[in-house]
């Protein structure tokens, strides 16, 4: 997985997690509100509807009770008693007129004698006077009439709802007795009130319940769930049907015989559920807003505290991997685990950087040592036959040098030469010339071998030169690190006393160079400066290093200037100071030399210059190197 993908993935995972958590929270809240809070409102609403129906039932029963009380007042009245018995005819004029019915709110007033004959009766139906017979329930031969009219108990009374031909009616029937309740029963007093629209409106006004009723024509119309009639005390079957805006509650009212007569209907507006719904909606909206705010704040905090630092760490690692620059630091000063991770990572890169430097140094030195060993071995092998040949030449020349050919010729040409020695002189001369010839031949052979071996040495050196041209590793280097190591080459001798000044800005400047090569160049310049001061016979001196950044041929470069107060050099020296084999140090051939330094810097894309105001005025060496760009 690439770095960019990993960073996106982390952010996406955090965002997705927050989204899922907040979504789950919102869903849980919605389900809770809908399954717990909203039904609670619905139950309250049904309770209210139930109560409304009970209130409507009780209101009707209350009206029946009031009617029964009025009927009782009239039945237990001496004047009425005397009137029924025919002893007080004026009762009719003084009490039984139409305004009386109107004042009492009655639809029916009927007075019967002890035989059940109607003495006086009046029916008002739809604001018009009607015949009592229209009711169909107070006929003499009717069982219902007999039940209502023929009382046997002076305290007996009958009241309740009654089905009539003109509609349901509240009806009360009392025996007519004296005011003190004593009999005998003179007749029957019956009063009734229709359950009509006016009554319904009156009931609605008084109860503030939207009530109405339907007359049951047959028991088949009664729902199976309303088998128990309302009893006025809250008992009885009540059916609730809920529409979008109302709860329709119904219950059954029976007549005074216990037969279902009316379906009482109460319509309760769904204000409570509407309030509940708006409450739930408001709560959901607030929860959703809170969830969004919490999610955003949490996401921002996670991003600031965790995601961004981790992405920064990943970017940093990728940057190091791409650039290979182990000096690049996170420098995160957070005091949490991520800060500790960044700190540990910085330490790790530090250690890795040091290990890499050490490895480079060791591999460089090991490579150089191996190369030197190989070169030494091969060159020494090549030189051995040459030395052996020279030994042979020397040996032969030593013999030749001792030959006395001239003396032998002189002895032969002398008249005094003994005859017995002539042959030996000739033998000596012959042997001498044979030796000279053999020596010449041997010398020629040795020179051939020497020439061949010299070419072999040249071939070894040429091969080494090719290997030396392998490009060194160029990397970003902090100058302060290089100089801190380079100054270690300056001997810690007591004299001369050297003052070393490194410009502070060096710590902020980096170059691109071969680390070991630059280290050796700077070490060489430091050592040269020290030795120059030493040769100046001064008791003290100063070596300074300054640095500045400049642009050369549109390339950003860094100029390092190593200056000393040593013996300096003249103009003639400055022209050849970087030539191969040149040294201003008398009889001194150690060290890599400025020629090597110039070549090494050229291999790094840099260069070196030297300047001096003359002998005794010190010297400056300018080192120009490519600047390191960015991290």
């Amino acid at each position, binding site marked *: 997985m690439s770095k960019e993908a990993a960073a996106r993935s982390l952010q996406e995972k955090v965002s997705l997690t927050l989204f899922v958590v907040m979504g789950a929270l919102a869903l849980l809240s919605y389900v809770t509100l809908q399954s717990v809070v909203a039904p609670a409102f619905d139950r309250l609403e049904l309770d209210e509807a139930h109560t409304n129906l009970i209130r409507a039932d009780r209101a009707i029963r209350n009206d029946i009770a009031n009617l029964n009380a009025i009927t009782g007042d009239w039945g237990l009245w001496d004047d009425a008693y005397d009137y029924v018995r025919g002893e007080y005819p004026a009762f009719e004029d003084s009490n039984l007129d139409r305004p009386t019915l109107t004042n009492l709110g009655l639809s029916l007033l009927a007075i019967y004698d002890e035989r059940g004959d109607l003495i006086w009766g009046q029916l008002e139906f739809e604001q018009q006077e009607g015949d009592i017979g229209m009711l169909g329930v107070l006929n003499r031969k009717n069982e219902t009439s007999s039940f209502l009219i023929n009382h046997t108990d002076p305290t007996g009374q009958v009241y309740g709802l009654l089905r009539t031909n003109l509609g349901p009616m509240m009806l009360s029937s009392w025996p007519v007795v004296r005011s003190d309740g004593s009999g005998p029963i003179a007749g029957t007093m019956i009063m009734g009130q229709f359950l009509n629209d006016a009554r319904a409106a009156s009931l609605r006004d008084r109860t503030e319940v939207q009530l109405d009723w339907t007359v049951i024509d047959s028991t088949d119309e009664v729902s199976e769930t309303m088998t128990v009639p309302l009893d006025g005390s809250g008992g009885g079957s009540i059916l609730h049907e809920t529409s979008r805006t109302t709860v329709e509650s119904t219950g059954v009212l029976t007549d005074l015989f216990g037969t279902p007569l009316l379906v009482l209907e109460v319509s309760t507006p769904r204000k409570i559920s509407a309030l509940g719904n708006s409450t739930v909606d408001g709560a959901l909206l607030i929860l959703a807003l809170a969830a969004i705010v919490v999610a955003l704040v949490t996401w921002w905090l996670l991003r600031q505290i965790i995601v961004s630092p981790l992405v920064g760490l990943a970017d940093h690692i990728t940057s190091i991997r791409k650039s290979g620059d182990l000096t690049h630091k996170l420098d995160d000063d957070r005091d949490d685990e991520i800060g500790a991770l960044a700190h540990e990572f910085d330490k790790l890169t530090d250690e890795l950087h040091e290990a890499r430097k050490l490895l480079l140094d060791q591999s460089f030195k090991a490579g150089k040592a191996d190369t030197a*060993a*190989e070169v*030494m*071995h*091969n*060159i*020494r*092998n*090549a*030189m*051995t*036959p*040459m*030395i*052996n040949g020279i*030994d*042979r030449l020397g*040996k032969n020349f030593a*013999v030749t040098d*001792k*030959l*006395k050919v001239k*003396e*032998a010729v002189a*002895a032969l040409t002398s008249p005094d030469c003994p005859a017995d*020695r002539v042959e*030996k*002189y000739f*033998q*000596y001369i012959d*042997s*001498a010339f044979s*030796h000279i010839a053999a020596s010449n031949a041997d010398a020629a052979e040795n020179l051939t*071998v020497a020439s061949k*071996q010299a070419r072999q040495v040249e071939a070894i050196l040429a091969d080494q030169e090719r290997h030396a041209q392998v490009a060194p590793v160029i990397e970003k280097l902090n100058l302060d690190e290089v100089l801190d190591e380079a100054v270690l080459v300056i001997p810690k001798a007591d004299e001369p006393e050297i003052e070393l000044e490194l410009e502070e800005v060096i710590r902020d400047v980096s170059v691109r160079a071969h680390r070991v090569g630059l280290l050796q160049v700077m070490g060489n310049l430091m050592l040269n400066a020290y030795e120059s001061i030493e040769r100046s016979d001064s008791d003290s001196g100063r070596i300074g290093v300054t640095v500045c950044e400049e642009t050369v041929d549109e390339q950003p470069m860094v100029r390092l200037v190593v200056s000393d107060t040593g013996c300096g050099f003249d103009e003639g020296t400055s022209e050849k100071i970087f030539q191969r084999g040149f040294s201003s140090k008398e009889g001194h051939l150690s060290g890599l030399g400025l020629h090597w330094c110039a070549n090494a810097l050229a291999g790094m894309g840099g260069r070196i210059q030297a300047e001096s105001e003359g002998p005794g005025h010190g010297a400056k060496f300018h080192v120009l190197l490519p600047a390191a760009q960015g991290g």
Partner: protein
Amino acid sequence: MNTQTNDDSIRVLIADDDEHILECYRDAFGGSEETDYIKALDALDAELFDVDNEVEETPRFDIVACSQGQTAIDKAIEAAEKGNPFDVVILDVRMPPGIDGVEAGSRIRELDADVEIVFVTGFSDVPLDELERRVPPPMKLHYFNKPLSFMKLAKDVAGMVGAN
């Protein structure tokens, strides 16, 4: 490989991977004919001109030369089996591609505790104390750096076996 035999000679086994070096060994350790020629000239010189030339008595060497360490070991084994072991073994340290001279010297030392072992090399990455440990004893171990005079080496070798 070159073999010269002489009953009075010093038996020397030489191993070096450079043929030019081997030729130098042959010149330095096998020049008895040339020495005889110079001796005759010196004798005439003394007779005819009354010159008292001190003719240096040069030792004679019986040399066996090879270019690999393993060959040197084989030659040493063969000589020991024939009851005619080498007096001196001269070894180069680096003789690629086979075993190096130190290993060869160590194995030869196991065969012959008295043989003088000489290391002659252009470069050795084996420290001297390790050489002494692997090819003991130190008094029978010698070390020379190339380049060197093989004539002087021949004298030194003769000195090692007391035949100077």
